[in-house]
């Protein structure tokens, strides 16, 4: 009987937290439907979200693992710029989308591996380590490209282009399916795989995780590699969607991606967080700009509103955590 009691999601339970973020999203959409009915009652704007949000969402998924482990990755946006360069450069020079794709993911994996080594083995706090590699990879991308943009119109007829950013049924952007697919897989990995469990225990208490037999260093390296590979994958989606790569594409994604993870309820203290929350968080962030512009209040308001939403989401989460204990 007490078992049944525990299954009910009372305020303060983990699932209530995820409801909270959905509630924020619904309220936001409700406001936009009132202030900009023309745009927000039309399905087209949601298709637009499905084409733009996946870029930051894919990175936010990797970042969720990093933050649950009690670490931070500030370099993913530069890794994205760098591996995007690798993708477009190799495609331009070889004409092979497959080669370009694999090389790009490999670049992301290497960048993540380096982060992981610096954090896990050299024991540099991740905020400093990844700040350093953020500058490094962004700088390398600028140096290698001489700051020029690369245009890849020739990629349009390729199969890879259709698979990654084609429109399913002429309407639904394929990248959304990829982002959701990855989210579902990662949600299983976080909740039902040994790796995900290790991530949560590491974020909860590193000493405990080690005493329980978790290979902390190895897992940390894997987490940063996951973040790197997902940044690379996101760079491929962006390069295909825009058929362009430009050297300064990274920084614009840094803060909105981090914000998406925190709005989604993942704890800065580590040990807990959900993939579902991050997905909703990414859509909240991704909708705000469009909503504000469509409401006619002017783009200047965007940052202010993002700030308010982030603060209220974090406030709700903190409030819930306090009630629980």
């Amino acid at each position, binding site marked *: 009987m007490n*078992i049944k009691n525990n299954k009910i999601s009372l305020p303060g339970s983990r699932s209530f937290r995820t409801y909270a973020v959905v509630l924020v999203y619904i309220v936001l959409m409700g406001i936009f439907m009132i202030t900009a009915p023309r745009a927000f009652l039309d399905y087209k704007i949601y298709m637009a979200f499905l084409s733009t949000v996946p870029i930051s969402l894919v990175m936010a998924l990797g970042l969720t693992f990093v933050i649950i482990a009690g670490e931070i990755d500030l370099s993913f946006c530069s890794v994205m710029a760098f591996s995007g360069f690798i993708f477009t450069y190799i495609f331009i020079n070889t004409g092979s989308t497959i080669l370009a794709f694999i090389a790009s993911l490999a670049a992301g994996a290497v960048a993540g591996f380096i982060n992981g080594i610096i954090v896990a083995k050299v024991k540099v706090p991740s905020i400093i380590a990844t700040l350093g590699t953020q500058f490094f990879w962004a700088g390398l991308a600028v140096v290698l490209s001489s700051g020029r943009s690369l245009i890849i119109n020739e990629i349009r007829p390729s199969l890879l282009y259709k698979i990654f950013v084609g429109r399913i049924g002429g309407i639904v952007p394929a990248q959304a399916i990829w982002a959701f697919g990855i989210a579902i897989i990662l949600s299983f990995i976080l909740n039902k795989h040994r790796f995900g469990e290790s991530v949560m*225990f590491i974020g909860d*208490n590193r000493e405990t995780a080690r*005493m329980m*037999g978790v290979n902390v260093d190895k897992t940390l390296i894997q987490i940063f590699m996951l973040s790197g590979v997902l940044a690379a994958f996101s760079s491929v989606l962006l390069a295909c969607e825009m058929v362009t790569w430009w050297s300064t594409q990274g920084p614009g994604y840094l803060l909105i991606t981090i914000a998406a993870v925190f709005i989604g309820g993942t704890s800065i203290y580590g*040990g807990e967080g959900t993939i579902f929350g991050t997905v909703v968080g990414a859509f909240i962030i991704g909708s705000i700009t469009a909503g504000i512009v469509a409401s006619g209040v002017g783009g200047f308001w965007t940052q202010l509103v993002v700030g308010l939403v982030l603060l209220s989401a974090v406030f709700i989460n903190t409030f819930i955590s306090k009630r629980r204990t």
Partner: protein
Amino acid sequence: MNNSKNLVEMKNIHMCFGKVVALKNVDFKVGENEIVGLIGDNGAGKSTLIKILSGVFPPTSGEMYIRGKKISNRGYSVRKAHEYEIETVYQEKALGEKQSLWRNIFIGRQISNFFGFINVKKEKEETERIMKELIGFRGVGVSADSRVGKLSGGERQGIAIGRAMYFNANLIILDEPTAALSTKEVTKVLNFIRKIKESGRSCIYITHHISDTYSVSDRFVFIDRGEIIGEYRKNEISMEELTEKLLMVSARDSGKGDN
């Protein structure tokens, strides 16, 4: 002397944390089917010694043998210790606070398939069983899904001990497992240790309660400021003498502190 084989043997162990020398020249062994009471004052080095044995960290120097086989200090780990059937209930930080009970029972040794995916249903069922049969939780509002953070100190220790019981190791190390327990629950732990003995396995029992350790241990090892200062078999010493020894050690310590 006891001629039975040693389950584990540690030779000439040194352990430094920066400038702090936690263990000096320690020789320590546990025989097969032996219950060893490890006794010493606060900060004597008991937890440090057993953490080396259970693979949490390697010693600064020294050698370790398990069933006569030399263990490389570098290659040793908690996972390896589990493989050698060494199970530990740590004094502190034994559980992940924000995680559920079932995850805490199985972390590091999940019931999982070839691809590493956890059989959540099975783990939860086993956890419920462990709680009922091994720990004897009456379970007021506590289930396999409960998070450790909301448990009382005694319930936490119950979980940690239940985990050790469940994995049924050959050597079970208990580092002050009874600190937060009621008298009735302490009795349960002592009975568990007797069961370990009856089933032919071994145990290292660390506690500040001399009468507890006297009632279950075969041999007592005194450790003081990182050094082994005495070893007695149960038939060589009475409980009164044992208590006296410990008091003397404490007195010696405070005497030195005054100088």
